[in-house]
């Protein structure tokens, strides 16, 4: 596991997390354009996230601890999937965890 590989891995994770809301923003833009509306900014989902972080969380009275943990687990596994799939660089250190291409082949 080279330093370069590790760097590429970390960069890819950061890029995936930062760019994911932009993809949603772009889809929303396209949808708006197709419907002849003026589109929201590409950064609108990021603004939405910022707004949500300023709101209170409200839990139902009978919500269990599972309800609190599930979003983190889902987010973590999504980021893990993004980290394994080679999108910015090949031969990432983590890609070995799932169907790595052997150096011999």
């Amino acid at each position, binding site marked *: 596991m080279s330093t370069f590989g590790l760097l590429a891995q970390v960069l890819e*994770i950061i890029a995936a997390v930062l760019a994911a809301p932009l993809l949603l923003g772009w889809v929303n833009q396209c949808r708006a354009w197709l419907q002849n509306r003026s589109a929201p900014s590409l950064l609108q989902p990021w603004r939405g996230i910022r707004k949500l*972080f*300023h709101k*209170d*969380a*409200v*839990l*139902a*009275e*009978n*919500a*269990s*601890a*599972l309800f609190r943990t599930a979003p*983190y*687990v889902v*987010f*973590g*596994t999504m*980021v*893990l999937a993004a*980290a394994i799939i080679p999108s910015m660089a090949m031969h990432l250190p*983590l890609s*070995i*965890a*799932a*169907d*790595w*291409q*052997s150096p*011999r*082949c």
Partner: protein
Amino acid sequence: MNLSFCIVLLAAWGAIGIAGLARARSIEFVGRLLFPLGALVGFALALCALTSFALPPEQLVLPIGLPDLPFHLRLDALSSVFLMLLGITSTGVSLFAAGYFRKGEGTPPGLLCLQYHLFLAGMGLVLLADDAYSFMVGWETMAISSYFLVVSQHRLPEIRRAGFLYFVMAHVGALCILLSFGVLQGGDWQLTFDSMRGTELTPFTASLAFFLALTGFGAKAGLVPLHVWLPEAHPAAPSPVSALMSGVMLKTAVYGVLRVTFDLIGDPAWWWGLIALALGLFSAFYGVIFAAVQTDMKRLLAWSSIENIGVIFTGFGLTVIFQGLGMGALAALALIATLYHCLNHAVMKSLLFLGTGAVLHATGQRNLGRLGGLIHRMPWVAWLTLVGVLAIAGLPPLNGFVSEWLLLQSFLFTDEVPRPFVNMLLPVGAAVVALCAALAGYVMVKFFGVIFLGQPREAALADAHDASLLERIGLGWLAFACIALGLLPVQVIGLLDATSFELLGATLGQRATEWWLLAPTPTGAASYGPFAFLVVAALIITATLYAVSRLYHRRVRRGPAWDCGFARLDSRMQDTAEGFGQPIRHIFAGFFAVERELPVPDDLAPRYRVTVSDRIWRGAYEPLGGLVSRVADLFAVLQRGRIAAYLLFSFVTLLVLLALVL
């Protein structure tokens, strides 16, 4: 050495069982002393089996049994896998049972203890037997003791009925197995497995022996269409017994099939595998769609067992195909997937059955429509069951994923099969396995969600209590086994390789050098590192938690659930077990026999009722049962109840026989 130790452990189980009779009505003596001792014996058995993988096969002749028919016993790598499975599972189940059996359960606890430990010892004997005689003794001990365990609440007529069905199916199966051994022994009536290994079989007799064994063991394993006893017997039995039956007893049938096919017959024909594969795929599919529409939690798990047995037989079928066509490395891959799935299913299904047992004790309900919201009342049971649910749904990094992944990997290489027709059909099999895995996830969401999440559907559920300490330890042990089998696939496969080498002469080998990285396929392109998954996911989640805690003001309010302005939200508005299964019932309508009772519009107390039943039961078993009883009625003419008539029959028989002989 290890073999003698195993025999001592099985004898210890027998002794514990008999000791239960000493103070048969004392829950303290039986529950707090004997069952934990039994768990200890199980643990020792698991350790003993674990160390005997690497050793050469051991044989021993015990001078018990009939004159000239001593017990031949043998411990080899195949027995070791299943003994390990028996040991690990029974440790957890016995610990749970120690806290589970209480007063008023029908059979007195001491007698239950005897039946339970004889059941365990019988299964152990089946796994160690090296001749048909001791095998059948073990097999019948297992069948009869489990029959008594199933009917432990024999005052209820439906439980007696379930027990009877189980008993009949077990004996039809046993007959087929006996006939199969009869074909295999090759004429000299040496019933030892050693002589069977040496027998030269013609293709016809080999096929006959294989299909008799497949039928016999299939009836025990619950292979469709011989599965009908399973959804009846599992809910009827007390939960620890259901756990053992589903977790271990079904696997002894898999053991039997593997033993007969690869050890006693030796060189299987590839087309047998095709039939086993087709039966396995159909069982997997049939089991999972029926599991999706069940409303009784134990019946749901029983159908899910049929699904998993189907997956195991699919792997077995692939192994036979590959081995029959001389593709050793791929056969090893499929065999290891099969054995791994046996181990996995044993621990996870036992865990789930014990979880339902704890729920049943706490609430007295098996009906999913009367449960709900139990995660608040029974957090231990809920979280430990969640481990089993995630494992059986096949999610990494738990164990269910590993074996299903291995099975799908072995399907990926079916394009190397040199039969074009088979080659064309096998990808359909892979698709069916994938479908079943996805539907199994759906079933488990239903199982966990309806029991533990949401609002309680009955007021009485507010009094539910969590499992006792011993029960928690039992559940915890099995959950731990699920996690360990999921995280250490390389080590487990290292053990199973010995079995594969013994049966097939080929091993999977390990293409990667790291201890945490599984790379099982011949080309080396496929890999799986569960630790990497776990560690990186944990790191990311920790980082996310940290980021959220820094960015967020952490104000959390508790309020009533949002009801969309409808002011009276109650538990009846939640998704129910019927509602959750409805799409499956609709999509696969052709497979179910559905009866509906719909309310008329002006009904003041409307009732809506759906009964889903098994077409195979209606179409095959009911006519067959009717036929048997009609034939029996014909013979009943002979039964007059007068001793003179019976004496006459004996006399006539004697005369006829004499006439024949002279």
